[in-house]
Structures are given as C-alpha cells and as structure tokens.
C-alpha cells in the first residue's frame, strides 16, 4: 500500500504542491532534451547517408570543442578559431571519407559501424596526444554566447533560466530546421536516402558516394562543433564528454534513425521523460536511473513502432 502510494500518488502530489519546481524540472528536461537532440542530429545525418550508426560522433564533439579551446589558448580570437574549426571538421570529413568509408563501400552495416568505433579510438588517442588529458574551459564569452542566469518569481516559487541554455535551445532549433530543410527538400537529400538504401545501386545511377559522404560528415562535424560548444559551456571540455553520445542513442532510436525532426522530438521526450522519472520516481529505487531510463523509454516506444516515431518503415518483403 505504502509502495503503491509512493509510486502512483506521491510524485503527482509533489508536482502539484511545488509547481515552480516542477516547472524547473520541465525546463531542465527541455534543455537536456535539446542538447541530446543536437548530438542525435549528428548521428541521424550520417545514418541517413550511409545506413550506419556513426559511433565516432561523440568523440567528434570532443575533438571539435578541444580544437576550439586549444586554438583560443594559443591566442587566436575565439570567433576566428571557430571558423578554423569548421575548416578542421571539413578536413576530418575528407579524411574519414578517403581513409575509412571509400575502401569500405558496399560492406555490411556492422562493418562500417565497427570502423567508426575504430575511428573513435583513433581520435581519442590523437586528441589526447595533441591536447593532453586535462579538462579545459569553454570560451563561452569570447564566442559571444550569453552567460549568467535570470530567476523568475513564478507560481509561488522561482524558476532559474541559464542564458546559455536559452541560447542552446534557439541554436538547436535553427540547426534542426536548416538541416531538415536542406536534406529533405534538395536533390542531395534524396541522394542521401538512396545511398543509405543501396550503395551499389546509388553508384550505378551516378551518385558520387565520396561527395555525399564528405558533405554529410562535414555537416555532422559542424553539428559536433556546435554541440561541443554548448555541452562544453555546461560542464567543461574533456574527453569525458564523449560519453554524452550514449545519451543520443536512445534519442535517435526513439525518433527514428533517419529522421531529423525525430531527433528533436526524441530528444525532448527523452530529456523531459528522464528528468521527471529521475526526480520523482528515481529516489524510490536509489536514484541514478537516468542512465537507463532513457533506454527503457525508447524501448517502450520501439515495441510499438520498431522503426521509431518518425523513422522509415523497415521494409519486410519476400
């Protein structure tokens, strides 16, 4: 009886009795959701174009952020470093295409997946060789991003909004919209989906896989850079950050591996869902359930829709 009360009644009582706090939870969930969506976006782009889960997305985030911080540490103005970093991401995209993807064309997905894990190791090693292991502080202000926070008195309590979080939300939404448009309404977008379906056939109609992959990895690189800045501003920039990639995985399967809007919806569902779960139900089982709650939420959706909310139907025909 006691347990039933704690599980089914008490959390809601809490939500109602401390509405300002509930609002804060929602906001925090929303912000993490948006940030998850940013990482997820990188995954989705590459999945769309090659049918492969790019495991290296997480490390690309770290790599981009570290380059940015590293360059500014050398005295390069932050905004110029940002531009240089875009260049670095382009070089990375070309490099990956040349060294990894091109020789592996038409191989089973799992092989490409594995190769991206290999790439992850490679980048971790390389990054630590270049940048060292110490965590670094994101140059948030130099990038003209807002810092600080505002507290609102609301619902008999208060709500604290970090300005950087607001900026993150706005930027994420703009990026999702822009990329969504680019990849669904253009010739390239169609080509991407074609490549994901069948490498060989795509080649046969004259789609240049090389070009497509560079474009997509470059786009994913830019997404990684932005993600790195936003996440870096929240915690700090270190290799530990690559772990956030695991947060994006449930997001993309929930939203659908191929859907850009899915990334944002998935991000929000997971972000808000896991926050609420952790805050209101987590304490019942000792807390720390965030790590898997996201996966369980995603799994629950998948059991109903195996291709995620907005994913392409998995074709099963004989």
């Amino acid at each position, binding site marked *: 009886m006691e347990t039933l009360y704690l599980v089914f009644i008490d959390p809601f009582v809490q939500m109602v009795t401390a509405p300002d706090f509930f609002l804060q939870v929602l906001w925090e969930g929303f912000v993490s959701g948006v940030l998850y969506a940013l990482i997820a976006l990188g995954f989705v782009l590459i999945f769309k174009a090659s049918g492969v889960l790019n495991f290296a997305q997480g490390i690309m985030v770290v790599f981009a952020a570290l380059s940015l911080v590293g360059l500014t540490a050398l005295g390069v103005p932050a905004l110029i470093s940002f531009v240089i970093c875009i260049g670095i991401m382009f070089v990375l995209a070309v490099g990956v295409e040349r060294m990894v993807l091109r020789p592996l064309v038409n191989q089973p997905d799992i092989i490409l997946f594995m190769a991206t894990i290999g790439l992850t*190791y490679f980048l971790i090693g390389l990054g630590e060789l270049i940048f060292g292991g110490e965590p670094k502080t994101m140059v948030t202000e130099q990038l003209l991003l807002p810092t600080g926070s505002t507290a609102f008195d609301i619902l008999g309590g208060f709500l604290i909004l970090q300005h950087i979080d607001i900026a993150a939300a706005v930027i994420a939404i703009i990026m999702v919209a822009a990329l969504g448009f680019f990849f669904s309404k253009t010739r390239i977008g169609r080509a991407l989906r074609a490549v994901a379906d069948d490498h060989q056939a795509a080649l046969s109609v004259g789609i240049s896989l090389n070009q497509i992959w560079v474009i997509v990895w470059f786009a994913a690189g830019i997404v990684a850079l932005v993600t790195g800045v936003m996440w870096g501003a929240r915690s700090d920039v270190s290799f530990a950050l690559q772990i956030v990639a695991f947060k994006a995985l449930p997001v993309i399967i929930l939203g659908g591996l191929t859907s850009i809007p899915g990334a944002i919806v998935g991000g929000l569902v997971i972000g808000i869902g896991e926050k609420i779960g952790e805050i209101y139900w987590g304490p019942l089982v000792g807390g720390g359930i965030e790590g898997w709650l996201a996966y369980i939420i995603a799994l629950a959706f998948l059991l109903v829709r195996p291709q995620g909310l907005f994913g392409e139907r998995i074709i099963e025909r004989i």
Partner: protein
Amino acid sequence: MLYREAGQYKTSYAADMAVFPIRQDRIGIAVMLAVAFVAIPLVASPFFLASIMIPFLIFTLATIGLNILTGYCGQLSLGTGAFMGVGAYACYKLTSIFPETNILVWILASGIFSAAIGVVFGLPSLRIKGFYLAVATLAAQFFLEWAFIRIPWLYNYNASGAIEVSTRTAFGVVLTGPTAGTVERYFAVLAIVVLMTWVASNLLRGWVGRSFMMIRDMDIAAELIGVRPLRTKLLAFAVSSFYCGVAGAMMVFFWLGAAEPSAFSINLSFQILFMVILGGLGSLIGSYMGAAFIWILPVLIRMVPEALGLPIEAATVEHINFVIIGALIIFILIVEPHGLARMWQIIKQKLRVWPFPY
C-alpha cells in the same frame, strides 16, 4: 604445395562433417592443444600466464558467446559486458552462499543465470532489429550496470560495492583468491574454454547453428521454412549469454580476483565486439584470433618502447596505443572485412595452389 586436401577422401558423411576434415588441420589442432596444455605451463612465466594467457582465454570465451549471437544469429548486441557481469555476480552469490562446493560447478552454473537474464533482454528482438536492437541491448547494459551498483545484496553489502573473491577450491586445489596458484588457474580456464569451444562447435554445426544462421541471413525466409524467429533468437540469446556469463565469472574468479561494477561497463562490451569482428563474424577460430589480437597487441605496444629503451611517457604510450588500435581496426576491416579468420582462410587457399597465383 604445403597445404592441401587432395588425396584425402571422405568415405562417410560423418567424416565429412567432422570439425576438421583436412588432415593438416587436425595435426595443427593437436599441436596447439599440446602447446596449450603442456608447453606453455612448463615454460611460461607467471606474468605471461596470469596477464596474457588467462585473460586471453577468458576473452575468447566471451567472444565465442557474442559471436554466437551476433556472428551466427545476426543480432547485434552491445550488452555483453553486462551479461558477463551477471555471470560474475551470480557466481559470487553462489559461492558465498555455498562456500564449500567445488568452485568449477558454480562457474558453470552462473552461466545459467546470465542465460536467463539474456533471454529477458532478448525479448524485444522479436520486433526490433539491426541497430535499433543494438541500442536496445544498451538498455540491458546500463540497467544491469545500475543494478550491480544499486542492489547491495548482490555484493553482500560490501561497503566498497565491489565483489571480492575469497579462497575457493575445486578437487582440493585452491583455484581462487589471492593465494591461488597461477598454473592451477590457467589449467582451470583452459579446460573450461576448450570444453566450451567444443560444445559450441557441436551446437553450431547442427540444426541449432543452422537455424541461427537462417535467422541471421534472412529471418523472413527462415520463418517461412518453419523456424520460429522468437524462439530461435531467444535460444541464441540464452546460449550466448551463457557463454558470456561463464566468461564473466571466470574473469572475476580466475583473473581479476575482484571487480567493481565498472569492470562490466560498455567498454567491455565494445572490447568483446571488436574481438568478434576482427576475428571474423561467425567463426570460432576467428574468436580466438580476435581475442588474441585485441588483448595481446596493446600489451606488446606497451612493451615496445621499453624494450627499445625509448623514454616515452606512460600516458603517451597509452595515447599511441589508442591511435594504433583504432587505425589497425580500420585497416583490418578494409583489408578483409570478414576478419582474421577469413584472412587465414585466404592464406590457406593460396597455400593450396601455391606456387601458382590462382
């Protein structure tokens, strides 16, 4: 021609279905067993046994386990680490409840627990496929990892949250705990791994293995032929997790001596997956090769600068290690996406026609 099958006729289907139909292979395997059971324990240093051979064999077993699921049945799983953890914790509980029982019994029995858990987490595979399933198995990974931390009963309310192996025996020989001898542990591990490899090869050559492969290659067609997808997938999950569980139990009991939940983290899952893929999906020999490669290579890389007397910092070596491993993984995949086992096969094929190119 160094290696060939010409002149070796099989006179019965039984002979044709043997594990190693070619004589050279049979001789090869006999030599390897002799080396493993006799030569290595005689000449190897305790360090070599304890830090190279034992972990290599244990990882091999886990690799075989994952290979059954991923390589043979086509279900990509990233939860291996956690399933190994289930084995380890099960074994830990079992020996602390029944300390007198032969430890080998519990090592094998703990596989049953991880098999059961594997089946539970395999259930979604009915509907979920491919990368979606892979991500779903991460749910198992993270949930179980959490459970290892949050359920203190599992680690006997030990304040450190780690499981620590006490001294246990089998047939009167101390096999676990800090006082256990290296050679004894080595033999225990070797025996279990060889036995379970043999069992796996039996299973995989019969209808069990065939139905796994049917599901892997085309699950719809398999169903139309009369294979029940869910049952078969669950069976694969069970068998695979059984192997992983035993490997996990051995990892803690015969190798590490103690373990924190983080020992069974996602990194372990990836490590095993690497071994599977580099060794070759769907190949038992490949599992050995992959495990050897991934386990021994970093050890070698670490030893190289020392041997050459190069003053390289430990951390730098570690970084370089990462770079090299990452690059090698990509390189091997490019050269032969089907892994070391296939490379070996091609080499054999070339030997067969040697000295001609084709």
